């Protein structure tokens, strides 16, 4: 028994030494996604894909600064779907943990809550989820789809299909309201009169869609009508059930949803949605060698998730049959853009990295993206038709759509 403490001290010293040796070559990176609360169901997937990407980069030699490889060391915090807590956790990451960059946020309200924190501490945030635009911070890079990369192409597609009446249905919060405001202006500029545009909102968690579906039925009575849906989360289930029961189909009145990606189908009856449309800058069904590798590597990584040899548990979701979706792809792209910019700048310093990010290119699963000076990507938009399997069949590809956060600019161009 006597020699055990010696061994323990020895191994502790060794660990300390190794730890010190490793610490010299690591870079701290913040992950700011809700791991509990209402948003956890969507945001944990982003945390998973971020850790996968860090591991991918570390395995291939880490981030090289001044010829020296740096291993990415994630600092994961849980803002628990609580918007003020997002700001606190962001402050913690930037001030206490001194991370070089943060990947995070899902809802617009959480982004708005951390924005002043990043500006005050001169931090760097990559934001990956489609949003309403009308915002531009020098401390945030938006890999997310701007309105003109998702909503406008979808509406253009509908106009191209001969649709003349638009029913804008959304959950009652900032993203749907701003998006619909822009879409209404856009539709008017395309010659759709006010009388043929309907704009309706329902509260979060609304389950009684009888009246709304009845009004859609009347609205679509004269034909050539479609629904543009920004309904969020599980309210889609009662909506689509009611919709199908009323005899409405993707044939007589198609629905384009902006908030339903492959990942959301885990909780939705895909069959009820079959035939309806989605618009994103990435679909899991894209055929490209980069995508095939991304999907296969991610699914393999989930079987035994580790980041640089450190085990890590995937919580809450069955790792089998996990899908990839646009926000996940855009999260991953953000990491690679940052890595390339750091290597170009030769420093982790935010003021040096920021100018280096602009103009960075990355050949991702959905084709090449370029970061513009307005902190948004040039990306490819896809229109997809929902299949009963919960995947999308791509029916239209719009290449090189330059993200533009301010609607005044792209509406003015028309």
């Amino acid at each position, binding site marked *: 028994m006597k020699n055990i403490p010696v061994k323990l001290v020895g191994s502790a010293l060794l660990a300390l030494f190794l730890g010190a040796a490793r610490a010299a070559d690591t870079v701290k990176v913040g992950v700011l996604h809700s791991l509990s609360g209402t948003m956890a169901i969507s945001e944990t997937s982003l945390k998973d894909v971020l850790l996968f990407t860090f591991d991918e980069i570390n395995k291939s030699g880490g981030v090289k600064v001044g010829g020296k490889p740096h291993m990415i060391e994630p600092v994961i915090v849980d803002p628990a779907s609580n918007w003020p807590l997002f700001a606190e956790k962001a402050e913690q990451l930037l001030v206490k943990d001194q991370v070089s960059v943060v990947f995070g946020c899902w809802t617009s309200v959480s982004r708005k809550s951390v924005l002043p924190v990043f500006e005050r501490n001169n931090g760097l945030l990559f934001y990956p989820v489609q949003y309403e635009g009308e915002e531009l911070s020098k401390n945030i890079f938006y890999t997310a789809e701007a309105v003109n990369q998702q909503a406008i192409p979808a509406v253009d597609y509908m106009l191209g299909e001969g649709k003349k009446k638009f029913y804008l249905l959304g959950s*009652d919060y900032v993203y749907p309201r701003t998006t619909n405001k822009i879409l209404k202006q856009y539709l008017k500029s395309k010659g759709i009169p006010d009388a043929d545009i309907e704009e309706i909102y329902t509260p979060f968690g609304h*389950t009684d869609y009888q009246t709304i579906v009845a009004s859609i*039925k009347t609205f679509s*009575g004269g034909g050539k009508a479609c629904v543009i849906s920004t309904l969020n989360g599980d309210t889609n289930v009662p909506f689509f059930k009611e919709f199908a029961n009323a005899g409405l189909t993707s044939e007589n009145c198609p629905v384009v949803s902006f908030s339903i990606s492959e990942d959301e189908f885990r*909780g939705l009856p895909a069959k009820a949605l079959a035939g309806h449309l989605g618009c994103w800058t990435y679909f899991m069904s894209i055929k490209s060698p980069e995508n095939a590798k991304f999907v296969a590597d991610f699914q393999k990584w989930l079987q035994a998730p580790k980041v640089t040899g450190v085990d890590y548990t995937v919580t809450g979701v069955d790792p089998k049959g996990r899908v990839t979706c646009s926000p996940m792809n855009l999260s991953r792209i953000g990491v690679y853009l940052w890595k390339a910019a750091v290597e170009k700048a030769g420093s982790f310093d935010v003021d040096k990295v920021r100018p280096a990010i602009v103009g960075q290119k990355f050949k991702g699963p959905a084709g090449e993206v370029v970061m513009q000076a307005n902190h948004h990507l040039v990306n490819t938009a896809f229109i997809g038709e929902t299949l009963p399997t919960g995947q999308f069949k791509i029916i239209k590809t719009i290449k090189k759509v330059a993200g533009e956060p301010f609607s005044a600019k792209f509406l003015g161009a028309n």
Partner: protein
Amino acid sequence: MQVPRAPRFLAGLFLRVALALAPVIAGLGDDAARAKLVGAVLSEDAAEQVAVVRDLVSVDDPVVLRSLAAWRLGNLYVWSPPDGGAGQPFLLEGATDAEGKSAAIRVADGSPLRDAAGTPVRVVVADLSVADTSSKVRRAIKVVLDLRAVGDPDPAVRRDAIVKLGQEQEPDYLPHFERRLPLEADPGIRRSLAEAIAFTRLGGTDPAVRIQAVRTLAELRSINSLGYLRKLRGQVSPVAEPELRRAVESALVVLEDYVWWGTLFGTAFRGFSLAAVLLVASLGLAITFGLMGVINMAHGELIMVGAYTAYVVQNLFRSSFGGSVAVQDAYFLAALPASFVTAALVGLVLERGIIRFLYRRPLESMLATWGVSLVLQQLFRHVFGAANVQVGSPRWLSGSWVISDVLLAYNRIFVIGFAFAIVGLTWLLMTRTSLGLQIRAVMQNRAMASALGVRTERVNMLTFAFGSGLAGMAGACLSQIGNVGPGLGQNYVVDCFMIVVLGGVGSLPGTVSASLGVGVTDQILQPWLGAVMGKISVLAAIILFLQWRPAGLFASRGRGLEG
């Protein structure tokens, strides 16, 4: 799609020859039609493609029809031979095999696609190049398929196609409708056909025909034409075309009147259906809270227990009887009693384990049941996962019954019927059985009932279990309408308390009237104020009402109010 230059030229040449022969092509064999289609698929001229597609409307060849449908959906592929020959469009045949491969069928002659050695090729979808389409071509194909669908054996397909084509107001489609009209046996579709014909004629120029068409639309009570007629009213000048203007105006009076009644009945039905949902959800609480006075914060989770029971029963049925449609239809009948029993057992354990010690301490019982609700939520999240689970709908609860353009969804009708049934059963239990007599006795005066030999402990236990069971059945029923997830209970519990308090604690008729009042008011306000403001207005109205009558609609003296 890359097609070598020379073959493309040849294909184009062939196409021009084929087009020159177009007038006689209907009489030619299907080979010619297929060749035309092949040419169109390989062509890069969208106008030419559209023209060819339109010509194919009279062709009956199954390969052509399948190819058109596949082309539109992007399921038509082109094989470019390695030796640089002309591209060959092909379809995929049937199911994929174990390696994910399927057989390929050539559009040109319906034969299997063969490689250089002459053996049929089997292909993987991911490796194929899809035949290009544009939205113009897709729309042209859609029109052709719709025109063919006018004679489809499936009535639903027929009706959809007729309604859609009618809305185009395209005179070319008239012969298709008129040819179908004498053959059509289904009265509903005959009406749709007549509507489509009238609507198309209205789009023409002959004033007499247009006036007749307007009259026909009014006679048919064609709601679909309402929007167009309203526009027409603005366009037709009362001076230049007085008769047409008069016809449009009188048609609008008839139609608007019809729509007004339809909206009235629709709103009434939706109001009743929302009332039934509220009633079904809160009836259990009307017993545990209303009659027994337990502020049961776990009521929502008892509903959740019932909904998850339906999910488990569904999975059990699928694993033991297979996933056929008949099984799907049958499981729900078993799920209702099963959810009653499961939730009643949970209620029984809850009552024996916690609540019976707290009957005289309402605040502690509230805290304890709230704790139980959190424990149950986490337990279900742990067992079934945080995501919602899918509870399928049987066929007899999907779709709707349409009377005079008012939609009555089957699942809504079922909930209304179910609400009647459980209220009726509860009433019978309370008034016609000895248990009901004992419940009422204990409720009114526990000490006296006990003195008369009623086993009050047992009555409490059974009453609470019964109330919980009702909540469970409500869960199974609500699984047909909303989501089933760990947060299900929280979505309903506030509404349930609201209904019971509004109706008057301890009064079953109060709960029924409160559900009706809230449901109908909500549905009447919603079209005017929107879903958000509608709900706020209803809540504000309830607050005002309770200020005026704090004891609710039907104030009664129950044990819960004795203090």
